[in-house]
């Protein structure tokens, strides 16, 4: 591992060195661009980089745009050159690309060794690698040719990170804690800025800093830029710590929202510094306060509007699916720039843009595009995060910015830390009077300790005007020290501290099954109790909002088809049926393969059943079957992937392991989620594709069925069928007929169907109350075809219109038809089986990389023509196995 690390480092250094002779001769203008590595998926970005760089606040000397020169070296041409060296022609994009590569290689090297990253967070390591690179560059050039400029940072590196944070924001969690987050983001940040600024000024007056030229307003300006907790640093550190979600959202939400405050404070004090002390009067201060609201709410509004725009746009991108994912990035970026243009809070803007559009675009866009957006978002965000930290390190190795003032620097670090703690403790103390679940002392400690400063503060410090603030370099240096102190030291100690304080972690591993089940029971129970006790408060507001949202927003912003899918209780049936069908197939496959792998006897049993069924017709069928298993094992990966890739992703791992793990996985997947449970996607480096959201329907139907049955039975004097113990298959089967009728909203009617259905059950002597389940159902040859959803292969609409009892009859008849055909000995050619074999196996070939193929494969699957001779048996077979 170490050798590999060294090798990679060497490669990086080589890359760097090979670049630098050229660089040395470059104007510094070019270098300013170099960290601006990440493009945003728009082709015009590189142009923007170079054109913007000429306006760099730090752009020192060179104004000529060397990056996009026409590449001709002056001088007359004497002969036709076959090849020519055109370094100038490509300098800027080339350096950008090289730096992206270098940064990502660093990440690769760092991540190669988990022993290190488990102790030291990646962000800290990246900064340290940055030191190293900075040293090399310094050694080569004798000046820091590369450093993170505010332009590059704010325009090209930050937006995608914030967009990512907004897009993957756990909305419910965020909004239910919004009050607390806002208190910390607004009051906490103001407090930090004011207290740090004033205390430093006080110490200055006391003579602790020696002779430096900083006035009160400058101190406040410095306080305001150092006050903000940095979202990039917070995610980078907290992601690896896995604290509980409330704690995380408090810190993370604060870091995201306090940008509005920081920007305002910074602008206000910057203006005050320019104005000079005398000109500041009450009017100016009131203006400052008003501008806070305008900036914060205006920024959020811009984001909101752009979020709506994206949602609307994705309504009609059906014909250009291939680029619809791009709209999110372009419009998100535009929302950032628009807010910036209007001097509103750009970070708030893009964050809210992401928050607003996530639901609608996920519903509107094609599934492939949704996945694309997710991945691309992560690539951008993670990539630029890497670059930011690397350059935070590199920027430090620069003699010119280091003006050492022990008093100033140490006091700043001290005050930043102490006032953060005081602020957090005080604000949470107030909040706890209103909060329903109080934040514990441990949580408060972590919140205080999680006040990490990062690149935003550094970027703001770089934006200071040297003419107005004489000690700009001291401030930059101090900001860097604070950043290093928080990111490296606090980052490293965060994990041990969390462990040591026994802070509640995010879901700890549940060891026992009963615990796992019980936790879910608790979740459901709490939700139910809250419903019963009619919890008022923010839930009420949430309900109102939800109502409004469902009634208007969704109508406006979602495709009709998608809306149908999202309409909670009644209209999902098409979707549900489809899913059931897929699950059914998958389950059948899994059952076959599960037994096959896990339990030899069961497999034999299963085989025997199979053989019993078909032996008369095809004596060699079983042999063929196992042959085809073997023959296709090599094809497993590239044949039709499982229909329910996501669902069984985890399960597939379990297949090869013990039964124990199997059950755990099973529970993991299939336990209904409590309503309060959120799927967290904010992790920048990992995310899981969302699983099915149809649970609500399932539960609802089940409950209503149960109730109606018991209701009817009491009414009609029939013994209540114990539906709870019913085989799940029964549920499914009953549900299908429901589909048509619930679509019409005739709900009682469908339950009539149901009732008859369950009456049938009773009549058929199926005793569901027995403790053990009749294997008959599972292994019955016709089991597969009982599910009417499989009819679509024959005629997509037919099964819907068939009343359940008729459907049952028809199903039976088709089963009969099967056996008749079987008896007539219609040839089951091996090719048929071979076509089915990959399907059967495919649950195992789940690979997250193939997820993008899912829909395609589904379609493929749907269009898969039934095997030539008898269509029904093939369906049956697929479902059955």
């Amino acid at each position, binding site marked *: 591992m170490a050798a590999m690390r060294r090798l990679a480092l060497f490669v990086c250094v080589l890359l760097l060195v090979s670049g630098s002779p050229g660089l040395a001769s470059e104007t510094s203008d070019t270098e300013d661009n170099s960290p601006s590595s990440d493009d945003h998926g728009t082709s015009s970005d590189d142009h923007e980089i170079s054109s913007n760089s000429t306006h760099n606040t730090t752009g020192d000397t060179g104004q000529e745009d060397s990056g996009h020169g026409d590449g001709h070296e002056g001088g007359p041409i004497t002969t036709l050159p076959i090849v020519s060296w055109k370094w100038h022609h490509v300098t800027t994009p080339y350096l950008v690309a090289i730096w992206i590569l270098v940064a990502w290689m660093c990440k690769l090297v760092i991540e190669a060794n988990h022993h290190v990253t488990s102790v030291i967070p990646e962000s800290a390591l990246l900064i340290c690698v940055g030191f190293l690179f900075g040293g090399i560059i310094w050694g080569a050039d004798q000046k820091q040719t590369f450093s993170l400029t505010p332009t590059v940072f704010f325009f090209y590196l930050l937006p995608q990170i914030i967009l990512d944070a907004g897009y993957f924001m756990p909305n419910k969690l965020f909004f239910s804690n919004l009050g607390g987050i806002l208190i910390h983001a607004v009051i906490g940040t103001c407090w930090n800025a004011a207290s740090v600024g004033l205390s430093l000024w006080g110490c200055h007056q006391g003579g602790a800093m020696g002779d430096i030229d900083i006035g009160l307003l400058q101190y406040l300006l410095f306080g305001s830029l150092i006050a903000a907790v940095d979202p990039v640093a917070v995610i980078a550190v907290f992601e690896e710590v896995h604290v509980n979600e409330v704690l995380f959202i408090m810190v993370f939400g604060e870091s995201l929202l306090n940008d509005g405050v920081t920007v305002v404070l910074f602008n206000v004090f910057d203006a005050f510094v320019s104005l000079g002390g005398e000109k500041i009067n009450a009017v100016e201060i009131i203006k400052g306060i008003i501008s806070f609201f305008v900036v914060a709410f205006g920024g959020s509004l811009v984001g909101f509007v752009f979020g709506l725009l994206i949602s609307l746009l994705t309504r009609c991108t059906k014909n250009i699916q291939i680029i619809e994912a791009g709209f999110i990035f372009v419009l998100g970026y535009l929302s950032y720039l628009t807010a910036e243009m209007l001097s509103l809070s750009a970070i708030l803007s893009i964050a809210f843009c992401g928050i607003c559009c996530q639901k609608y675009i996920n519903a509107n866009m094609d599934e492939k595009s949704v996945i694309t957006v997710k991945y691309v978002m992560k690539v951008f965000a993670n990539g630029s995060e890497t670059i930011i930290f690397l350059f935070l390190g590199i920027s430090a190795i620069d003699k010119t910015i280091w003006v050492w003032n022990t008093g100033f620097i140490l006091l700043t670090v001290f005050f930043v830390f102490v006032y953060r703690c005081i602020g957090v403790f005080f604000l949470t103390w107030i909040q706890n009077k209103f909060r*329903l*679940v109080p934040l514990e002392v441990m949580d408060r400690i972590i919140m205080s300790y999680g006040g990490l400063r990062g690149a935003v503060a550094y970027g703001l410090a770089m934006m200071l005007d040297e003419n107005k603030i004489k000690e700009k370099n001291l401030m930059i240096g101090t900001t860097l020290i604070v950043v290093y102190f928080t990111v490296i030291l606090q980052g490293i100690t965060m994990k041990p501290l969390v462990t040591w304080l026994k802070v*509640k972690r995010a879901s700890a591993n549940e060891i026992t*099954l*009963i*615990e796992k*089940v*019980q*936790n*879910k*029971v*608790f*979740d*459901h*129970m*709490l*939700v*139910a*109790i*809250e*419903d*019963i*006790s*009619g*919890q*008022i408060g923010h839930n009420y507001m949430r309900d109102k909002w939800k109502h409004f949202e469902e009634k208007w927003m969704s109508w406006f912003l979602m495709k009709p088809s998608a809306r149908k899918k999202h309409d909670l209780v009644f209209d999902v049936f098409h979707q549900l049926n489809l899913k059931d069908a897929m*699950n059914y197939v998958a*389950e059948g496959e899994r059952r076959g393969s599960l037994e096959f792998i896990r339990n030899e006897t069961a497999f034999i049993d299963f085989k025997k059943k199979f053989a019993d069924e078909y032996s008369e017709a095809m004596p060699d069928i079983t042999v063929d079957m196992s042959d085809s298993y073997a023959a296709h094992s090599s094809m497993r990966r590239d044949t039709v992937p499982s229909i329910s890739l996501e*669902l069984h992703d985890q399960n597939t791992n379990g297949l090869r392991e013990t*039964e*124990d793990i*199997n*059950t755990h996985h*099973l*529970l993991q*997947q*299939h*336990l*209904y989620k409590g*309503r309060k449970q959120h799927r967290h996607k904010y992790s920048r480096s990992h995310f899981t594709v969302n699983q099915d959201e149809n649970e609500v329907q399932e*539960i*609802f139907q*089940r*409950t*209503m069925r*149960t*109730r109606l049955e018991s209701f009817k039975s009491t009414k009609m004097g029939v013994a209540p069928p114990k539906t*709870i*113990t*019913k085989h*799940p*298959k029964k*549920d*499914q089967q009953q549900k299908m007929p429901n589909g048509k009728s619930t679509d019409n909203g005739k709900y009682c009617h469908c339950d009539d169907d149901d009732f008859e259905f369950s009456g049938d059950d009773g009549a058929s002597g199926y005793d569901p*109350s027995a*403790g053990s*389940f009749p*294997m008959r*159902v*599972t292994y019955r040859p016709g089991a597969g075809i009982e599910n009417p959803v499989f009819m679509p292969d024959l005629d997509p609409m037919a099964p819907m219109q068939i009343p359940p009892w008729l459907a049952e009859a028809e199903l039976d008849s088709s089963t009969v038809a099967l056996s008749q055909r079987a008896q007539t000995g219609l040839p089951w050619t091996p090719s048929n089986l071979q076509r089915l074999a990959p399907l059967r196996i495919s649950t195992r070939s789940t690979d997250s990389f193939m997820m993008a193929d899912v829909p395609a494969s589904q379609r493929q699957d749907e269009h898969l023509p039934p095997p030539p001779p008898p269509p029904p048996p093939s369906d049956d077979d697929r479902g059955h196995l």
Partner: protein
Amino acid sequence: MGSSSSRLDRVPGAKDLMEETGFSETNILCLYDRFEVLDREERGYLRLEDFEAIQQLAVNPIGDRIIGAFVFPGRETLDFPSFVRVLAHFRPTDTTWSRSGSQPEPANSRTRKLRFAFSLYDQDGDGKISRAELTEMLQAMLGMQVTDEQLQSIVGRAIQEADLDRDGAISFDEFKKSVEKVDIDHKMSTRFLR
């Protein structure tokens, strides 16, 4: 205060309830309002149908069991004190202020909370979670994708894990032990009833 205590007058037996359950006046008043909302026909007691009318409960997989915990099978109705007493299980455990006249076992103690959870499983009330009962519960909680064998193996394993005396069922003590590590106070307290 004056107005709230006069409001408190309309709640029958409010003082005793507060004493018994540890709810604050606000809680009692809120709950009483809620009770009246649920009691649409103003009979002064709740019936099964009143609970079933709560929309969200219908999408709760164990909603019916929760209702069952309120409305006992024998009795068809639920008056306000009983309503409050059941909900008292979900009051967070007091940390800051201890009640002076503390009963030996307030309803929000860990044991009582667990007892409540246990009763959701133990539908026949024999003090044990039998295999069938656990199966029922799991079936209610699991999606439909799980097959019978899988369900059975899950149930089997779960019982095996918890069943210390090997009688094939989970007693309350065994249940308590099996969820030892779960933070019950966190999991079984609603913020609202604080």
